[in-house]
């Protein structure tokens, strides 16, 4: 058998799932950086350890972030990845592209970088994977010429992202792509010039199915909801049932608040609207018959994040309902109040959810001028250690 330079990685060209190793090899035909990336990765597979140094600051004119330094710890062995920096490019809202736009992107990246991409990174950016320091500025300049700007990095508002929304989803309660487009343009300065204690993320999911993973992956999640009532097309319901849909098992028994009932004799589905918590199940399983309401807006959740530092969090309800119409002034004012308070009060590397946990939800609400509401909690406190302010009690003597 012919000996190859990367026997371990070659194993990952087998199998039915598309292979990232084949992708790196395709890029390696044109890019020495991609070739050395593969060679260095083979060593990682052999030694079971990564070979990237701790970082190092790189930059481009006019921006405080958006490019991330990456250096090999074995530059003698792999000189073409001695510098192999990342360029974070702000993706198009909803991840929509044209063939022409993608080809323009590939032309620029083939000219200045490895020809490798993450489509897309965890936060949402197009990740251009690997170039040298001297190519960063011309690369970013030419990306600008084809209409692509940088995303965020460091203690900044990170690149915003969203689900497909009204562009192609019947469940969209808010215009997620438009909100993201509007906020992204409005917040260019704090995206591109880190000025905060740590990262801050905003994502929009247009309904409670949360396809953008907003409640887990963003400090401030905007989730589309409605506050009137589900729309039911009774003829369509009957058609589902006539075609063998087991309405009791798949719908009635699974409604978490028992808001739905089915009268088999009358062939009528009835809804107790005030009991519905908009969980989406009935809409998901009967898309032709049940639809979202018409009085739509968003629930705002705060504090979602991964484990660093004090454990993972899923965002908490902050505003049960907010109308979402351009130019989204109420949302922007809320974001500004929250980020100002957080920037003033957080420790280094303290996300907003951890700051709220440290100082208490009541203090946070007071600072940003919101009233406590029962929708914010699963239950009231069950301990008696209540803080009272001096002005709330009678003065003694």
């Amino acid at each position: 058998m012919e000996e190859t330079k990367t026997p371990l990685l070659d194993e990952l060209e087998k199998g039915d799932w598309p292979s990232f190793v084949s992708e790196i090899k395709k890029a390696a035909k044109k890019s020495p950086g991609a070739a050395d990336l593969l060679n260095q990765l083979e060593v990682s597979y052999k030694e079971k350890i990564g070979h990237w140094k701790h970082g190092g600051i790189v930059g481009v004119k006019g921006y405080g972030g958006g490019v991330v330094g990456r250096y090999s710890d074995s530059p003698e062995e792999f000189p073409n990845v001695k510098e192999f920096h990342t360029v974070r490019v702000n993706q198009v809202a909803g991840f929509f592209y044209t063939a022409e736009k993608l080809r323009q992107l590939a032309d620029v990246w083939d000219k200045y970088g490895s020809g490798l991409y993450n489509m897309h990174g965890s936060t949402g950016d197009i990740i251009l994977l690997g170039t040298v320091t001297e190519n960063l500025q011309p690369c970013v300049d030419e990306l600008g010429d084809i209409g692509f700007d940088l995303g965020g990095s460091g203690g900044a508002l990170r690149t915003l992202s969203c689900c497909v929304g009204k562009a192609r989803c019947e469940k969209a309660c808010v215009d997620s792509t438009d909100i993201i487009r509007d906020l992204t343009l409005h917040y260019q300065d704090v995206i591109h010039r880190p000025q905060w204690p740590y990262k801050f993320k905003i994502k929009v999911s247009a309904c409670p199915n949360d396809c953008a993973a907003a409640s887990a992956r963003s400090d401030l999640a905007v989730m589309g909801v409605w506050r009137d009532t589900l729309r039911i097309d009774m003829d369509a319901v009957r058609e589902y049932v006539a075609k063998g849909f087991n309405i009791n098992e798949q719908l009635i028994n699974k409604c978490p608040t028992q808001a739905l009932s089915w009268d088999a004799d009358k062939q009528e589905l009835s809804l107790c609207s005030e009991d519905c918590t908009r969980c989406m199940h009935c809409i998901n399983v009967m898309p032709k018959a049940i639809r979202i309401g018409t009085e739509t807006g968003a629930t705002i959740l705060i504090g979602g994040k991964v484990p660093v530092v004090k454990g993972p969090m899923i965002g908490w309800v902050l505003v049960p309902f907010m109308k979402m119409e351009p130019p989204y002034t109420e949302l922007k004012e809320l974001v500004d109040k929250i980020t100002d308070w957080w920037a003033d009060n957080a420790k280094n590397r303290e996300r907003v959810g951890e700051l709220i946990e440290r100082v208490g939800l009541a203090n946070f609400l007071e600072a940003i001028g919101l009233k406590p509401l029962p929708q914010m909690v699963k239950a009231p406190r069950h301990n008696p250690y209540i803080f009272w302010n001096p002005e709330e009690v009678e003065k003694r003597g």
Partner: protein
Amino acid sequence: MARTDFGPPDFREMLPPVIKENYGQWKYHTVPRPGVLKHVSESGAVLHSVRVASPRLVSSDFIRDISDIAEKYCDGYLRFTTRNNVEFLVSDEARLQPLIDELDAKDYLIGGVGLSISNVVHTQGWIHCKSAVTDASGISKNIMDELHEYFTGKIKVPARLRIAVACCVNMCGACHCSDISVVGIHRTIPRVNDELASKICEIPTTVAACPTGAIRPNPKVKSVTINPEKCMMCGNCTAVCPAIKIMDPPNDGVSIWVGGKLSNARTAPMFSKLAIPFIPNNPPHWPEVTDAVKHLVEVWTSHAREGERMGEWIERIGWERFFKLTDLPFTAKHLDDFTHATTTFRSSTQFKF
């Protein structure tokens, strides 16, 4: 001075005419075959979307190939999904089957829609991350080589199943809320290079980075010390002080977590919980990881009721029964001892033997 702060291209310029005309007017959708979505508008207009898998890490050749395909069948319009799939947006139904034929001929895997296991959301790994304990791309590739028939719809599942792989406990990629997550972990405490730390690390920042107060200043050598009894190997100190190293190949590896979800459908979003505390790194195939994930999928598939996500199934049967059915050992490692530990302890006699 170069132009700055102009933002990304306007999404409205990237939309096919059928979407522009029916924006916000979609009425319902169906799944006519695995991997294909058919959206119908109030106006009666129809859009087909054909979803294919990508390895997320792609080359310019891949970008050009999908662009060529989109141009041939979709007037150039395509998009990506939040789970790294590619979607071809077909306005002309006559071009749907020819598109599918070409995708099949080129070995693109069509699937990942509705009741299926969609693409893995994963992180950079050894390919490009400084804090990677494992290679997320490699593990994801092996898992999906094994499970691709769940993606293409050849094997049915009771409900959606989301898999995520993160190369360290930072859990980039919603690992804390996925049906099955694979997360790289350390098992030995970090080592401090005092001489280097005294030169390049801010001591107060390093001390403050520790969530358990395990790090104390060591003024004699202008460095820090780590209390092994308090350190839980989160690696946060290594992110602020490059003189602290935590990588330890023989002891590093991955853990497996189950039962997380984010959709509000039926039940509230759930965190993923620990199923398997440690599996060694075994590249290039990580067979123990792939076997464990496949086993979890199979036990869930054969026991869950229709429509029950992994976490919903486990909540119904109870964790004690989950460990029995999966034949996984329950150990002291499964007992939480961090910030929200007591919220996970049971105060009821309602459990199963």
